[in-house]
């Protein structure tokens, strides 16, 4: 049996290869130079929390599944997967004969070890909670991995397709310790050749790679330049082929270059002012008035320079689009907002609200904060924007609703799926529900949705949840961010995922 399956896999593989035969058999050529704004601390998927780390993990490691640029789940190491009838055991068949870049075998045992490492409390992974529902992971033979689920979860594929679930070589982790975070050993098409903290890192092809996305580049050189102006200067001087996070004001300058342009793929980052549902904001009329007071079109064009699309639902595009439901945009209607406020019993100038914004975390966050304050002032609310540093912001955002002194906080959410996002934010009493939102119907639906494996059923459940949330407006819905990436004309085949991960699978340089 195994041999038969093996040959099938090989055939599939061969088919895959023939599809991409040009790239597959072409020698890796050219050096791609990428300038990124964030300084990755580690590539260890158990700790990485930056899109640039995701990009490296995607190139250096492999997961059981992965997301394509459209956020659809694809098989990588996995060849097949199925739930047991009671939904308690999730079985994945994997490719055999694979090795990590250091030659260690990548078999079912290695896959199980990788998951169990992340789930081990002693590891201290920041994703342990997210993956806690996977329970314990066991290897059965060479090619089968069993997840003994802690609770039923119909979204396990979404979880496993995230780069956080990439398979690490646990033996290498034990040997290398923290250094593993710099030069992770995986089975992806590339490996990290050099990493200089804060300066940059360099990926080179992994000679042991066997898979669908063989390396096309001789090297990918990343340089870390946090200052926007300096990073753009790299693009303008031709010292970089790809620059991440082009600020709106530089888009024209880069488009004006002869040999580069800015691409603006959508991002799943959904930016909202998350309300604390106490005091005045417990009143749905006030929440509605706030939502009507904001000129989303004006701000996204004027302040964000076009790098935003007004929200048409809480969940951003690319977050499991098959389950996502959108609604007509909220109309900008300050007069209507004033009326609603009057109905709620507030005369102009009577209502005071404060809200917390981070600096430099989201596109033009400080300016947006001021623009929002202006919008609220326009409908007769005394608005105080509190622009705080990252540490304070994360403190405020992480507080229990009854400890909060402000009324709203600006948060961007980009998450690993519908269940994760909605359950964490809106299920009554869940630790991450910082608005204090509570709706028995939503609770019931979320619970049901989590356990359901049937896509049609999921679509119906989550559609209803999204609709209730959109109507209840526990958030001041703002917009979805748009990514802006400067790409030189010599780069071809470059793609970006909605979660802002750069994908180098098919990139070639002229």
């Amino acid at each position, binding site marked *: 049996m195994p041999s038969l399956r093996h040959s099938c896999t090989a055939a599939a593989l061969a088919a895959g290869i023939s599809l991409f035969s040009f790239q597959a058999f072409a020698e890796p050529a050219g050096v791609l130079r990428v300038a990124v704004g964030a300084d990755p601390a580690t590539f260890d998927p158990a700790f990485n929390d930056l899109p640039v780390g995701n990009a490296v993990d995607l190139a250096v490691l492999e997961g059981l599944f992965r997301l394509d640029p459209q956020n659809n789940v694809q098989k990588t190491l996995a060849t097949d997967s199925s739930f047991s009838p009671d939904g308690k055991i999730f079985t994945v068949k994997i490719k055999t004969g694979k090795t990590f870049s250091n030659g260690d075998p990548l078999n079912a045992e290695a896959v199980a070890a990788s998951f169990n490492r992340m789930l081990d409390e002693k590891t201290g992974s920041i994703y342990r909670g997210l993956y806690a529902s996977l329970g314990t992971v066991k290897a059965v033979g060479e090619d089968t991995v069993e997840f003994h689920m802690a609770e039923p979860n119909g979204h396990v594929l979404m979880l496993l397709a995230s780069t956080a679930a990439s398979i690490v070589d646990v033996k290498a982790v034990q040997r290398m310790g923290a250094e593993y975070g710099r030069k992770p050993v995986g089975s992806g098409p590339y490996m990290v050749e050099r990493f200089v903290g804060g300066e940059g890192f360099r990926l080179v092809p992994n000679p042991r790679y066997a898979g669908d996305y063989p390396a096309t580049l001789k090297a990918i050189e990343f340089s870390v330049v946090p200052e926007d102006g300096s990073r753009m200067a790299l693009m303008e001087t031709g010292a970089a082929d790809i620059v991440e996070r082009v600020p709106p004001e530089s888009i024209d300058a880069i488009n004006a270059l002869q040999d580069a342009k800015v691409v603006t793929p959508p991002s799943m980052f959904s930016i909202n002012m998350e309300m604390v549902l106490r005091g005045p904001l417990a009143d749905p009329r006030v929440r509605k008035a706030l939502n009507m007071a904001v000129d989303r079109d004006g701000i996204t064009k004027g302040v964000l320079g076009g790098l935003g699309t007004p929200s048409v639902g809480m969940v951003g595009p690319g977050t499991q689009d098959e389950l996502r439901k959108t609604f007509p945009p909220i109309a900008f209607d300050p007069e209507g907002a004033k009326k609603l406020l009057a109905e709620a019993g507030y005369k102009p100038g009577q209502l005071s609200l404060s809200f917390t914004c981070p600096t430099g975390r989201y596109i033009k966050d400080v300016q947006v904060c*001021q623009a929002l304050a202006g919008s609220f002032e326009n409908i007769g609310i005394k608005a105080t*924007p509190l622009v705080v*540093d990252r540490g304070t912001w994360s403190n405020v955002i992480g507080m229990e609703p009854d400890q909060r002194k402000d009324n709203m906080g600006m948060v961007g959410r980009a998450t690993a799926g519908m269940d994760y996002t909605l359950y964490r934010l809106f299920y009554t009493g869940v630790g991450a529900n910082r608005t204090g939102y509570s709706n028995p119907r939503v609770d019931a639906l979320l619970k049901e949705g989590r356990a359901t494996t049937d896509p049609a059923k999921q679509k119906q459940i989550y559609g209803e949840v999204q609709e209730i949330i959109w109507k209840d407006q526990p958030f001041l819905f703002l917009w979805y961010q748009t990514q802006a990436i400067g790409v030189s004309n010599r780069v071809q085949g470059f793609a970006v995922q909605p979660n802002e991960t750069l994908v180098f699978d098919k990139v070639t340089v002229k």
Partner: protein
Amino acid sequence: MSLAQDMATDAPPLATRVVVAPSRRRWTLLRRVLAQPKGAIGLILVVLYLLLAILGPMLAPQDAFRQNFAQTLRPPSAAHWFGTDQLGRDVFSRVLVGARATLGIGVGGVAVAFLIGVPLGILAAWRRGWVEALLMRAIDIMLSFPDIVFALAVVAILGANTQNVIIAVGVVAVPVFARTARAVTLSILAEPYIEGSAALGASPARIILRHVQPNIAGTLLTLSTLLFASTLLSASGLGFLGLGTQPPYPEWGTMLGESRSYIRSHPYLATFPGLFLAGSALAFNLLGEALRVIYDPTSRRTSRRAPLFAFLRRRSAKPPAGPLDADSADRNAVSVKALRMAFRTRDGLLDVVRGVDLAIRPGRTLALVGESGSGKSTLLRAIGTLANPQEVAITDGAIGIGGESALGLSAVALRELRRRKIGVVFQDAASALNPVLTIGAQLAEAVRAGCGLDDEAVRQRCIDLLKDVRIADPERRLAMYPHQFSGGMKQRIVIAIALAQDPQVLLADEPTSALDVTIQQQILVLLREIQETRGMAMLLVTHDLSLVSRFADDVAVMYAGRIVESGEVATVLERPLHPYALALRASAPGGAESRGQPLRSIPGEPPLVGEFPDGCAFRPRCPRNQGRPECAECEPEPRAIAGRQVACLFAEEGLS
């Protein structure tokens, strides 16, 4: 501004050439600041900025907070002089409104630093002991936290708003104030008059209030002004790191920080707040520099010597006359003819030496006597070719040393002349020796100059020179530094250096006035001996008439830049004919018992340079004047009367 004026009232009177009447002292500081181009520009700018801070919000043509998403990032236009920002607000109005917060941070930050730092510094200096040790250690600890991180942490802990930014940048500057206040207080407390007050039982608080506070006020005012600028810049650094003032209130540093990524695409956005910010830092720096020049004793010379842009105004002095006629030159070691000299000041040239004729033959000692400010030291420096051409101009006349003209020489010829023919002994031996070089090095330099002796020969010559000036154990002394010698020993060393090249002329500028009486005697005896054994000509400048009769052959009495009477010591001192010389002798009746008495008992004050009266300069103090019109008419020329030269129209009255 108000600070500056308050300080002006308390400013200690400072010794300067241009003394201002006490009633006008209140405005002294202001005038002295304005007198410097730096100060004038700085003060005007600072006043303008402060006006902007007060009136800015009223002047703003548009609502600085009004957003307009249809009008974002517009370039400068008639409607928006500085363009509009990311939220469509008028940048010009925001800059005007932002003046208050920006300057407020500067003033507030400095105030915080001042109010914490100065009392701590004074306390440390006053209490000494463990209080000082503890405070200074605490300041060390503060200094070891990096500035920006410290400020960052303060803002992060307290929350980002204008008030906390002020606290943060203020606290960061505390060590500077504390250290300065301590250092200055320590030096003031060491002054004899303070020790005197303490000895008289004055309470510490009183001493600090009465003596210390006014004396450190100037330094601290200067420091405050200079720190103001750096405080603004650190606040702007916080703005850069996203921890500036809270939006939407404008502040230049934050505006600049926020718009920095627009430098390429919308340059005006960063340029205007940047220019205003840099301009305000510049204004306070200029003012601070001007204050520093006034208060910092170490830079006081600069103020007199180096006004900014002075080169635009400097009048060229008349070139000095040509070579001396040969016959007088070859006989005299020093020959000065119709020499006129003037100080260079901002207001032009001020005459200080006004037509002096002087001659010293080899082997003779000429004593040049006169009150302070009579121009005698200036004359000595001119003869020694050491007059600083940037301070003093030789406007007319001639100087000859050993038959050579000392004026209009090339740099090489001048060095040669100095080396071969001139030795100089200064008033203060302590400052005449370089404190950071050994005696041996300084002597060797003098010996080696212009001749090719080997090291051993140089050393032997140094030892011989020290022996000549009666310094015991010369071999060991060569390796010592000036501060390891007593005053008298230092003066001997200075003399040894002066003698190193066997000069023909020895110039001694009050060589003993800094020494105590017994040492004075020894030094003068030594000088006299050396002069006689080597047959040198010596010019001895002194205001002590009692020394003259015993150590000089000839004497020249100088008053207001002119020689009023000169001749042999015996003749002149026996019966002075000029009323000033007479008064001088009367005030110092001679004899060992009154040696060292200053010549202060002549009625009236000597005239200031540049304020000489018409006619005879001694006229206002002269007992012979009695309103005689002749005295006011013209400056009397020296005439030969009774074996000497006298410049008095009524000199004959002295004979009767």
